[in-house]
Each structure stands twice: as structure tokens, then as C-alpha cells.
């Protein structure tokens, strides 16, 4: 066992970080937000929600995805990472994929990254980033509940991200985006860089393959992890610079302990995500059985998603608190992390579903009775 990343894995991660720093640094992020705003107010400013709310990126407009960057990511192997080399891929596993996705999450890179990555083997153009592929990945049973969650008066249907800029929708039998779009309504999105459309519920069908859903959940968890780690950095940096009462606010314990709590959440999520990836790769190689440790690969992925969702959303909120009034502004990036974390929490595997998977696994595992635990002073320790 050597759970730490190898040199090659560190190098891979560093390469992606450098690429994103060059191509999608803070200025590019803010420019993308401004563009999305200008295009139709995906951000739904104000409560009045008049015409601006009908926006969303116009069909055929550039949208939130930068096609040039998408192709560059494709050329760097972001989407084809796990395709076999014989099929023009990089031939790596989920262990490497989560490191790469973590970097994308850290940079708040917009677009249906997970769906396109998952489509690399089956949708033309996905592997090399010439196609943008989205999926019905919001909620646990997209289409299954016919938009029951929508507010009163809202059109029935389900939400789907990045539809107007997608070339394909992942999933057996999904209609092409153009067909979906003709019946779709753009919906103002809480996250300025995740445009939403409401579409009629798709044929419930079998839903995405379990395997695909697990992989989607894991890669989404990796995005969440990157964001959670990034907001720790942002909070720590701000706490070291901002002064009140004649000293950096980071010298106040209340602020220090917010920051350390953020790190604890992020580190717990990190090991859960990496272990789930390593376990799923091992299960793949072994043809199904879980890696040494607790439970099945599916349960470990559910746990990783649950903990990473929590880390991303709670860290963004604590970061907002550390920023004070600045944290409530549009100008600071904190809200972008929080809003994206909320989007991702709904994608592929929600907390409720993840907890049910874990509970079922727990009960199944508990069927073989363990030792009856009459041990005195256990954990008394010191």
C-alpha cells in the first residue's frame, strides 16, 4: 500500500494546473461570467425577474463553454484520459481522472466536463473535445418524477445544463439537443456559468447505466474537492491580509477555527475521493470485487460524493463568512464556488440517494455478525 500519489500522478496534475492557469485564470473566469451575463442574464439578477430571466445563453450563442479551450483540453487528454490507448486514449484510470478533475474544480472551469468525459468512448468528438456533451444528470431520477420538484406554476419538465451549447446528450435514446431545444424553455440559473433549460421529461427508460452514474458521481466529487480545497486557500489568504483591530483577522481564533474546520472537511473528502477512485480501478481490474477495505466500490463512491458535496458547499459558506461583506459581493469569487457546489450536489448522485446506498451497504455488511464488543475502557486511552 502506498496511498500517496506517484510522481507521474503529481506531474499529470501539475500539467493540468499549469494549462488551466494559462488558459482559465481568474481573468478568464470573470470574463466568462460577464459574457454569460451579457448574453441574457443567466444569473437572474434581482427578484423582479422580468425579461432578463427568460434569457439563458441564446441558442447557438457561445454559451459558457469556450470551444477553443474545450478542444485544448481534449488535445491534452482530459476527455480521453481513460480510453484505451488502442482507441486513441491515454489509457489511465479513475485514480488519475480524479486528480485532473480536482484541478478543473479548483479553477471553476465551466461546462459539462463530466458528461463529455464519460461520452469519450461513445459520442463522436467527445474524446478530442470537438464535441460538447451534456447529460440528464440532475436529481436522482431525472424524468422519473416529471418535474414534481418544480414550483407551482412552473412548466413541467426537468432541468438540464448546457443544453444550448451541447452537440449531444448522453444516454441511450436521448433526443439530439436541437430536438430537445425546440421544446425547451431557458431557465435563469443560480450559477451564472451553468445555463439551464427545462425540457419535457425524457422517456423514463432505464436511466443512465449504474456504472455510468457511479463514475459521474465520482468525477463530480473530484470537482467538488477541488473547489473545497480552493476556498480554503482563498479564506486563508484573505485572513492573512485583511486587518481589523490592528491585526490580521487570521490571528483571531474564531476565524482560525473556521479555516481549520474547512481544511478538515476538505482532507476527509480528499481521502474519500481518492480511495473511491483507487477502489473502483481495482474493482475493474479484479472484475467486480471491491478493494481491500470497507464495502463495495459503489458505496465508497457514494460516500465520496456525499463528503465532497458537503466539503464544497460548507467550505464556500465558511469562506464567505471569512470574507465578511466582501463575501456577499458579486465581485468576489466566493459565490461562484458556492453556486457551482450547489449545482454539482444535484448532479449524478444526491446526498439523499448516497446515504441510502451507504445505509443499504451497511446493513448488508452487518449481516455477518462481528464480535460482541464487551471491552472495557475501549477508547479510554488518555
Amino acid at each position, binding site marked *: 500500500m*502506498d496511498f500517496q500519489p506517484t510522481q507521474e500522478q503529481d506531474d499529470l496534475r501539475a500539467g493540468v494546473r499549469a494549462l488551466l492557469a494559462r488558459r482559465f485564470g481568474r481573468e478568464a473566469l470573470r470574463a466568462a461570467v460577464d459574457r454569460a451575463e451579457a448574453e441574457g442574464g443567466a444569473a437572474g439578477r434581482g427578484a423582479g425577474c422580468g425579461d432578463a430571466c427568460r434569457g439563458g445563453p441564446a441558442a447557438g450563442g457561445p454559451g459558457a463553454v469556450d470551444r477553443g479551450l474545450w478542444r485544448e483540453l481534449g488535445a491534452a487528454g482530459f476527455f480521453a484520459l481513460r480510453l484505451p490507448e488502442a482507441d486513441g486514449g491515454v489509457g489511465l484510470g479513475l485514480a488519475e481522472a480524479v486528480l485532473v478533475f480536482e484541478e478543473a474544480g479548483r479553477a471553476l472551469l465551466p461546462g459539462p466536463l463530466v458528461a463529455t468525459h464519460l461520452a469519450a468512448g461513445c459520442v463522436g468528438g467527445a474524446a478530442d473535445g470537438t464535441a460538447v456533451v451534456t447529460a440528464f444528470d440532475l436529481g436522482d431520477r431525472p424524468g422519473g418524477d416529471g418535474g414534481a420538484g418544480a414550483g407551482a406554476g412552473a412548466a413541467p419538465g426537468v432541468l438540464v445544463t448546457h443544453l444550448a451549447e451541447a452537440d449531444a446528450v448522453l444516454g441511450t435514446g436521448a433526443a439530439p439537443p436541437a430536438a430537445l431545444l425546440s421544446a425547451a424553455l431557458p431557465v435563469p440559473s443560480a450559477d451564472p456559468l451553468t445555463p439551464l433549460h427545462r425540457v419535457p421529461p425524457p422517456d423514463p427508460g432505464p436511466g443512465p447505466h449504474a456504472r455510468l452514474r457511479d463514475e459521474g458521481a465520482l468525477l463530480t466529487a473530484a470537482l467538488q474537492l477541488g473547489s473545497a480545497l480552493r476556498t480554503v486557500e482563498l479564506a486563508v489568504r484573505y485572513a492573512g491580509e485583511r486587518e481589523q483591530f490592528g491585526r490580521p483577522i487570521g490571528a483571531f481564533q474564531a476565524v*482560525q477555527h473556521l479555516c481549520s474546520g474547512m481544511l478538515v472537511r476538505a482532507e476527509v473528502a480528499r481521502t474519500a475521493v481518492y*480511495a473511491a477512485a483507487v477502489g473502483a480501478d*481495482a474493482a475493474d481490474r479484479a472484475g467486480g470485487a471491491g478493494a481491500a477495505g470497507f464495502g463495495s466500490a459503489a458505496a465508497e463512491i457514494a460516500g465520496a460524493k456525499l463528503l465532497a458535496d458537503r466539503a464544497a458547499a460548507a467550505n464556500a459558506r465558511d469562506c464567505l463568512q471569512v470574507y465578511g461583506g466582501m463575501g456577499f459581493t458579486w465581485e468576489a469569487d466566493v459565490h461562484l464556488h458556492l453556486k457551482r457546489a450547489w449545482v454539482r450536489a444535484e448532479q449524478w448522485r444526491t446526498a439523499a440517494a448516497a446515504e441510502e446506498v451507504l*445505509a443499504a451497504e451497511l446493513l448488508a455488511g452487518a449481516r455477518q455478525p462481528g464480535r460482541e464488543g464487551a471491552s472495557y475502557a*475501549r477508547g479510554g486511552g*488518555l
Partner: protein
Amino acid sequence: MDLAETEEEREFRAGLRAWLAKTLPELPPRPSPDDWPGRRAYDLGWQRRLYDAGYAGLHWPVDAGGRGAGPTRHLAFLEETERAGAPYVGANFVGLLHAGPTIAAEGTPAQRARWLPPVLRGEEVWCQGFSEPGAGSDLASLRTRAVRDGDAYTVTGSKVWTSHAEIADWCELLVRTDPDAPRHRGLTWLAMPMDAPGVTVRPLRTLAGSAEFAEVFLDGVRVPVAYRVGAENDGWRVTMTTLSFERGTAFVGEVVACRRTLGALARAARANGRWDDPVLRRRLGRLAAEFAALWRLTQWNVSAAERTGGVPGAGGSVFKLAYSQARQELYDAAAEVLGAEALALEEEWVRERLSSLSYTIAAGTSQIQHTIVAERILGLPKGR
């Protein structure tokens, strides 16, 4: 990143499992929590069996009588013994995990020869006399005085919260030898025989009703200078070696134990119908994720320690913060499973719920751990 076992690890585990399967049924019945002599005999007896089988001091250096195993091997040992339901380290805790490693690192050859073998063989029990009534989190403010008098120190003062003091042969004692030096510079580490004249142990009753720890009064106790480990006034540095052990791997087995408890909780909830409540079910599911992640965090920290060849560092604070909270939540969830039965002390989970209340206090409170993480890992400016 790799979680697979090597061939050697597999062999080691197989051998250990076979030994445990043979040995555990031969163990005498566990003594009752109030039977201190019985507990001492039981814990030392277990250590002796480990010694005879070659498993004692696995993680200790070879020249200290240990097996020189790396952190990964030690982790496998803790995992397998806990899974098999082997006895907990119990009264051997300080000897094996605190005083022993300190002596191994800082002691003279004669001191190592005197003190380490009896710990490994299960012959002597150690306790830790650091905390005082006036010095808890702020350990360096301790006031117990040791005055040099020929070839001995005369020690006067009092210690508190000393676990296992009643059955200990030795106490690793932190005393002030230079009251005029800056706080951290005037401390010295001594090994004190618990039967020395002037040592009075007064058991303290914990909120769980048991007497896990004690007050130790020291009234002119003479401790030979030869029992000093490290230089005079260098005790703070000597002690920090010990504390970093404490925050590293000390809770490994317990994570495995928690996972087992969680499984038992699920079974109990299924049996009494509460499993049908999705709120409770989901709560248990969430805890399953927490403990699985804590186990992975342990493996992560151990792999990091293996690479640096060193002692686990401040990462242990991250672990302890997450673990102590999860452990308390675990027993709160147990109470929800039990319902009104959670008021009956005969339930083991209820007693465990009470003990778990100490987790955010002992071995460095959660507030202190947060400050360590903020200042030492995150590099935030120092408070105050």
C-alpha cells in the same frame, strides 16, 4: 496511489490472523471495569502473548527491542487485531505509545535496557504525569518542582487526570527544574517509580462512574538523577516527541471498532423497526461514509509517514478533529437507535456514549487542535 497489499503484507496479515484465531479463544474472561488488579493482569497477559509470538513493539526500532516495522505494517497489525476482536492496548498504552518511544528515542543505552524490555514483555505499566490542576492545555505552565539534591531530584507538586495511575509501576513525569528560565526551557522529563515514598494516588471518578484516572500528589519524592531522560531543562523537546506519537496512530484500531459498532447499530435498528425511519437510516449511512473516510485518512497519513520515514506530524490533528466528532455522533446515533433504552446503563453503547465525551478533550482539546491546524498547517498568523 495504491491501496493494494504487497505480497509481504498479505503474508504478514495471514500469519497474524492465524495466530489470532488460535490465541483469542485461549484468553481468560475479561475482568470487570472496576477490578483494577484484574485489568492489569489481563492487559499485561495479552502483551506477554504478543511478545512471545513476536508481535510486541512492532513499530519500535530494532535496537530498542522492537521489530522496526514501518507505519504500514503497524497499521495492518492494528487493523487485524481490532477486526479479530483482540484486547485493546489498555494499561500498556503509555508504555507502548508514549513513554516507551520517548525512551527509545532519547534514553541512554542503560535506560533503554532497564525500561524497554519490561514494557514489551508485559511486565511493567506506565502512566503519564503531565497535566496539573493549573496546567492543562497550557502544559508548559506546569509547576511541579524538582530540586536537584546530590544524585536525586526532590519532587513536590501534583498531577491530575493521570490515567491508570492506580496500577502503574512508573510515571513519565514532566517537572520544572528551572523556575527562572522561560516557560519551555525549565522543564525536565523524569521516570518516577510509583511506589516511591511521598507518592499518593487518589482516584477520580469520571462522569461514566468509573475511576479511569487519578490525582497524583507528590510530596518530597526522591527520583534518582539516573532516571532523567534527556538533559536537564530539555524536557519540553523530549516530551514533544511523545505527543507527536500520541496524535499520530493512537486511534487507528478505534476507527475499525467504530465501523463494527456502526454495523451492529444497523442490525439493531433493523431488529427494532427504527431502520424504517429514513432520517435515522440516512444518518447511519452518513456515518458509514465518515468512518470509511477516516480509515482512508489514516492510510493516507501512514503512507505519508512511510515516505518521509518519520513520525506522523500535524496531519494527526486533522484526523483527531474529524474522528473525535464522528465518534461522538456515532454514539448519539446509537442513542437514537435505542430510543428510551439509551437511558439504561446496562447497554454497552450507553457506557460508550459516556466515555466518548472525553474524546474532544483528552490528548489535546479540539480547540487546541484547531489552533494547531490553523497556525502550523495553514500558516495563519499566531493568535494573541
